[in-house]
């Protein structure tokens, strides 16, 4: 069995895997426990090497990718961090050969570690730990059992919280007046909520923030790649033809709530996608390079705490990038040399998963909190696992008051309209959601942003 790190998010849960999954009970972050995503890891459909939508020999696809990289000007490279540090570093080297950088779309930042949650007496959380990062829940439960007071700021009541402050888009400024004091803050830093996380990170003691991130190696990627553009900026620049070629390494721009923004991809001269799973993005790409599944390859991962973890798969995930470098006549790279460079950049000589090394990733806030007018809003309550397309939650959550006012009955549909059209969806009634808010764990076609103004029709 391979000892691996779950690729579901940046928590760094350890497990064993071959044809079946097994629990690794001495894994430092999760003690062998897994969420629903981790439990379904072994059920993925693999991507195939393709050119123009047709399956091809891998060597031909690598040559084609190499040729396109040489021919096309203004190439952008994107890797959110769904690969190991070694792959990320190889990708950065590849980008540098055409004078480009790798964009991770998440600012670099390492906050407090898990022990700090367990030792806290006051916790302020901005996530729903039951669905967004479920393996953080047990550490919060531990703190609570030991007397910690938990206050939640979220769109609905959070069960574990002693006090739930229900947020509403129309009163989002409320978060500016939070008195953080010495409280430990639990925050989700992801490409879709940067203005929200900026506000929090700028308002409290940064050493007290547990900064959760959505991709396997978000932290390592930030450390090893310097590009500082959001996914929205990249899509805008493609639209403006400033970016003509795009190479996506295990990174899916379809995470953006507004599908209309994705039409920018059609303006590209070339789209290269290197990923393990087959999906509609690979159908859209000019070139598809089939990556090893993260849990098949070996390498180093840096979790949200900055803890270095080893994934001990059988394959060296850098093979394809290395072949492209070779094909382009550039200096070849090996796993061993990349691994040594990774350790050097992490400032460690060996990986000890039970020790969290010091890191200095400076956070550079850029965006301002958005303002929302009155009326009703659809909120996309994304989770990392939905981005991995594995968990089906095809319903929205609404308040009992809204269900009552719309005279909705069991097994009925909620009808909503935004500037992009109408949708009718199944719903679940949950406690303490504002009556003007609809929470959607799935991306709906009527979404224009994470928060979309809607009417009920």
């Amino acid at each position, binding site marked *: *069995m391979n*000892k691996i790190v779950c690729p579901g998010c940046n928590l760094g849960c350890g497990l*064993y895997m071959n044809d*079946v*999954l*097994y*629990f*690794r*009970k*001495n894994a*430092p972050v*999760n*003690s*062998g*426990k*897994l*969420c*629903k995503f*981790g*439990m379904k890891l072994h059920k993925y459909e693999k991507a195939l090497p393709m050119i123009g939508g047709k399956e091809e020999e891998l060597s031909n696809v690598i040559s084609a990718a190499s040729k396109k990289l040489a021919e096309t000007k203004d190439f952008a490279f994107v890797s959110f961090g769904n690969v190991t540090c070694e792959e990320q570093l190889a990708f950065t080297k590849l980008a540098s050969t055409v004078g480009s950088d790798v964009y991770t779309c998440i600012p670099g930042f390492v906050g407090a570690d898990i022990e700090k949650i367990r030792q806290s007496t006051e916790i302020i959380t901005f996530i729903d730990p*039951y*669905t967004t990062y*479920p*393996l953080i*829940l*047990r550490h919060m*439960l*531990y703190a609570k059992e030991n007397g910690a007071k938990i206050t939640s700021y979220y769109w609905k009541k959070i*069960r*574990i919280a002693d006090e739930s402050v229900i947020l509403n888009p129309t009163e989002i400024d409320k978060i500016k007046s939070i008195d953080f004091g010495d409280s430990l803050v639990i925050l989700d830093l992801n490409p879709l909520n940067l203005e929200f996380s900026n506000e929090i990170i700028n308002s409290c003691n940064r050493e007290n923030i547990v900064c959760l991130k959505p991709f396997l190696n978000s932290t390592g990627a930030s450390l090893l790649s310097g590009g500082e553009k959001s996914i929205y900026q990249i899509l805008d620049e493609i639209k403006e033809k400033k970016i003509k070629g795009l190479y996506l390494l295990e990174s899916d721009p379809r995470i953006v709530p507004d599908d209309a923004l994705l039409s920018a991809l059609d303006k590209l001269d070339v789209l290269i996608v290197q990923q393990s799973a087959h999906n509609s993005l690979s159908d859209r790409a000019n070139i598809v390079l089939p990556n090893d599944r993260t849990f098949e390859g070996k390498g180093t991962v840096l979790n949200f705490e900055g803890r270095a973890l080893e994934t001990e798969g059988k394959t060296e995930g850098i093979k394809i990038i290395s072949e492209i470098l070779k094909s382009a006549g550039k200096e070849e790279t090996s796993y061993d040399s990349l691994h040594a460079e990774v350790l050097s950049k992490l400032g460690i000589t060996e990986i000890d998963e*039970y020790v969290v090394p010091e890191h200095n990733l400076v956070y550079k806030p850029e965006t301002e909190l958005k303002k929302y007018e009155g009326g009703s809003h659809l909120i996309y309550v994304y989770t990392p696992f939905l981005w991995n397309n594995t968990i089906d*939650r095809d*319903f929205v959550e609404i308040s009992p008051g809204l269900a009552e006012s719309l005279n909705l009955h069991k097994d009925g549909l909620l009808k909503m309209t935004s500037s992009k059209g109408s949708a009718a969806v*199944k719903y*679940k*009634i*949950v406690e303490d959601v504002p009556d003007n808010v609809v929470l959607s764990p799935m991306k709906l076609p009527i979404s224009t942003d994470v928060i979309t103004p809607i009417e009920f029709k």
Partner: protein
Amino acid sequence: MNIGDRIVAWSKDEEIKKEGASGGLVTSLLTAALKGELVDEVIALQKVSEFEGVPIRTSNVDEVIKCSGSLHAAPINLTKFAVRFFEAHPDGTLALPAKPCDARGIIEQAKRKKINLEKTYLIGLNCGGTMPPITTMKMLEKMYEINPDDVIEEEIERGKLIFKTEKEEKAISIDELEEAGYGRRENCRYCETNIPVMTDVACGNWGAGKNETFVEIFTEKGLKLMNNAIELGLIETAPATEKGIKIREKTNSVMEKVAKKWHKKIFVPIEDRLERFHYYMDVMEDCIDCEACKYVCPVCACDESKCIDFYDPMDSHKISIYHLVRLLHISDSCIGCGQCTDVCPAEIPLTILHRRMADRIQAKYDYIPGMDMKIPPSFEVE
């Protein structure tokens, strides 16, 4: 040698004797089973560290030898690995070491035709309990003042938990550790089945001398396992001494008493029905729907699961139907192994919840699961 005999035995291979626990008998029985072609494959626990073991299925004798030694802080149940063996090889033969909870899970699966017990050699391991690895590592630092990386061997002897490093050996009583919140897993504390009398042969260090294993032979298969290893020249045996037999009886009796004490302490009755309802509701509401408890449950044998089929995440129930179905469904077969609690990401004390239900049902039907091939009450058709 006969069924019912109590003897002491040890490996004749010096390497196995050194690396294996109590003279390496279990490792030698497993290797002998492969060498003598009694079995096609063996399941064993490969040691990664003192706190980590990985189950392997192998027909390679060298790999089995590498699995020598006991791992008290790697609490793994091997039942589902045995199920997978018979899924892949319906006519195959298998040998594996089995703590009482492994053996009980295997017997419950055998009743459901997922394991062929006639083709499974169960080498029972006397068990005083296992420990959660991460908590044990913390315990080493706080209670023993030992760096977990320095541990080269651990042992449970005469109510004490002993850790050895290159430089020192420290022992602390299990009672003291458990009062401080460390020590054995909660379910092990109240487990009264310390000697796996349902296996083919039970092995342990209670009543044995240094580098010896105390052995009790229960079945024809057990006799075959022992004779096979003797014929291959891999083990040596001697009759158990009267003193050894008394120590074994006394240790077992003390362990049972301790378990009863813990059971009373943990399972304080909740007489009031409404209070009981709220107790279940309160802890189960933390469930995040991962289904890990079902995946790891050694007695769960459903291919198409009612607990999953009846559950819809869209329901607004405070307790998911998934858990209600599971509570009912395994109430007659739950063996209290603790695996569900171990893997629950929301730290729901699932084993306690299931045992609260199962204790009543199993007492009512006078049925103890996993002890013999007697069918469970839910199978009975009048």
